[in-house]
């Protein structure tokens, strides 16, 4: 991340969002809205003195990066390795921004005058040739599986929360402690939460088996706890992955094959008191078991970002039925989209782990650069054309085109189709009331001829004199 931030040919626009895209391959115009962070990036050196100056002497607001496991101040650095190393101010909680009445301790502490409470949203327009969409994924909301008690029992965690707990830069400095301060003596990891499930998401999220194994290893290493993995199938495809699984088997991590039915605090035996009990059918021995543990970890799956429909329409790309962005071909064109010049990288296209994401992103970057380097594009001949003599300037086609390939030439009073943008779907051809648009290779004449040929009486000669 740091490398990308420092590279002379890379401009990073963080805390920004794309609000508009127009143009076509090689000539995209992208509108970017940069949110105010109230700290000037050009002046700040990342000394973080401002954090000490803040009127809030103790952090009181939930830290988003640590999933609310600890607190931050209204002025904060999102996380230790954040790029750029510039803090930002949360306008919903900053006294100065909320009420205008604050001693501005942060600004006083800053000897470079980088704090700027007057900063406004900036909108800029960028001219780019190619676009890579790498908007990532969201983990499944554990509220979708209420029978696992997330939010009801404090010691039920998501895997991402445990990931922060075991991290040296996390809220506890790498110490695994429960919400009441105890060290867990036994941990149950439930696989496939929100994956491979008719009730939530049907797909396999691909990464959960491996990260569950990693967490099992780290939890055992950090706490010495008894660790149980509850799985449907162990899916460990990848270099060195199966070996890691075998290593865990030797380490004495317990594996129970079966989907957990529920997590409950209802104890029916003395050893279950004060613990969370996982009810599960152990399909290897064909028995329903009750396993009491101190800590439950939900290995939540991956799903598309909640705004993936809006992002897809912004960039003119399509989505597969699961909601992830659709590649042009699952095997032969895995990083391209059906819009020329727009590429996909990483989990925005579908669940994948880090090595696969790095490979996917590398492919996307190479494709994007190769296209720019070539300087010209080859387009399909199957596109639509306007017969300017017939066009009645009704503009029906303008709104119907999914690729905004049609523009209206006010001077000539006709619709014009951009050859580079048109994908040849033919929607405008069907919609044109004047019959002025023809789709190459699928003209009305050609389709009518097909209908006539297919329905010709056997042995009968057609009007054109061609025998059937």
């Amino acid at each position, binding site marked *: 991340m740091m490398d990308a931030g420092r590279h002379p040919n890379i401009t990073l626009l963080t805390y920004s969002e794309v609000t508009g895209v127009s143009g076509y391959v090689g000539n995209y115009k992208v509108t970017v809205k940069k949110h105010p962070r109230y700290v000037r990036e050009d002046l700040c050196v990342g000394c973080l003195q401002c954090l000490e100056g803040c009127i809030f002497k103790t952090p009181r607001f939930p830290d988003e990066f640590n999933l609310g496991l600890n607190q931050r101040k209204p002025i904060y650095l999102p996380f230790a390795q954040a790029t750029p190393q510039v803090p930002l101010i949360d306008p919903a909680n900053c006294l100065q921004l909320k009420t205008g009445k604050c001693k501005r301790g942060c600004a006083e502490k800053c000897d470079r005058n980088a704090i700027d409470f007057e900063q406004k949203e900036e909108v800029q327009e960028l001219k780019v040739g190619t676009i890579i969409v790498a908007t990532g994924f969201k983990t499944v909301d554990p509220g979708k599986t209420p029978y696992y008690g997330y939010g009801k029992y404090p010691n039920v965690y998501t895997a991402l929360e445990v990931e922060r707990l075991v991290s040296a830069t996390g809220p506890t400095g790498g110490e695994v402690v429960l919400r009441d301060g105890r060290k867990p003596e036994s941990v149950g990891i439930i696989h496939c939460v929100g994956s491979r499930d008719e009730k939530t998401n049907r797909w396999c999220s691909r990464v959960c088996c491996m990260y569950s194994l990693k967490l099992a290893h780290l939890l055992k290493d950090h706490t010495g706890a008894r660790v149980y993995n509850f799985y449907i199938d162990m899916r460990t495809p990848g270099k060195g992955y199966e070996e890691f699984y075998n290593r865990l088997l030797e380490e004495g991590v317990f594996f129970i094959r079966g989907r957990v039915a529920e997590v409950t605090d209802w104890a029916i035996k003395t050893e279950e008191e004060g613990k969370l009990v996982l009810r599960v059918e152990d399909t290897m021995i064909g028995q329903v078991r009750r396993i009491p543990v101190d800590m439950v970890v939900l290995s939540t799956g991956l799903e598309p970002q909640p705004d993936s429909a809006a992002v897809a329409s912004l960039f003119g790309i399509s989505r597969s039925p699961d909601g992830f962005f659709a590649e042009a071909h699952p095997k032969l064109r895995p990083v391209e989209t059906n819009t020329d010049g727009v590429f996909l990288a990483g989990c925005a296209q579908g669940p994948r782990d880090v090595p696969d994401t790095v490979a996917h992103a590398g492919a996307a970057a190479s494709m994007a650069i190769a296209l720019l380097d070539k300087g010209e594009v080859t387009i399909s001949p199957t596109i639509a054309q306007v017969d300017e003599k017939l066009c009645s300037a009704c503009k029906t086609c303008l709104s119907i085109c*999914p690729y905004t390939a049609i523009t209206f030439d006010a001077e000539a009073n006709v619709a014009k189709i951009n050859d580079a943008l048109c994908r040849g779907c*033919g929607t405008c*051809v069907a919609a044109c009331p004047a019959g002025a648009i023809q789709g190459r290779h*699928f003209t009305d004449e050609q389709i009518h001829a097909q*209908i006539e040929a297919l329905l010709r009486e056997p042995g009968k000669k057609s009007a054109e004199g061609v025998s059937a």
Partner: protein
Amino acid sequence: MSEKNFEPRIIGFLCNWCTYTAADTAGVSRMEQPANVDVIRVMCTGRIEPSFILKAFAEGADGVIVSGCHPPGDCHYTNGNFKTFRRMPLVEALLAQFGIEKGRFHWGWISGAEAPKWAQLARDFTEQVRSLGPLDWSRQLASKED
């Protein structure tokens, strides 16, 4: 052709990316389906003009199928299937005004992965049209002109 050994003639307008692929897969996988359905490939169901359907009936088709990608997200061209979704009920109403039975026109969605569904549709629809008998709309039209 006598009523007894009536073989319906059906035209299917299929989109290149979903139903055409499904029909292709059904063929390659040797799924059982009648030879009554003749397929015309279009890039997207959004290309299908109502006039194609009328033309097919006028040329002697006994039934017409229009099938494309599942809404909302399956369309290769983002939203061509939605245009079909809007147009086809109008075509249905139009056919009713022409006195063409409802069972002679089918429109719907079959994805590229649903080859068995296509084979089933081809079988069921052929039988449905067979039970309706020949349409012979061209002769009906000609007799009205006289």
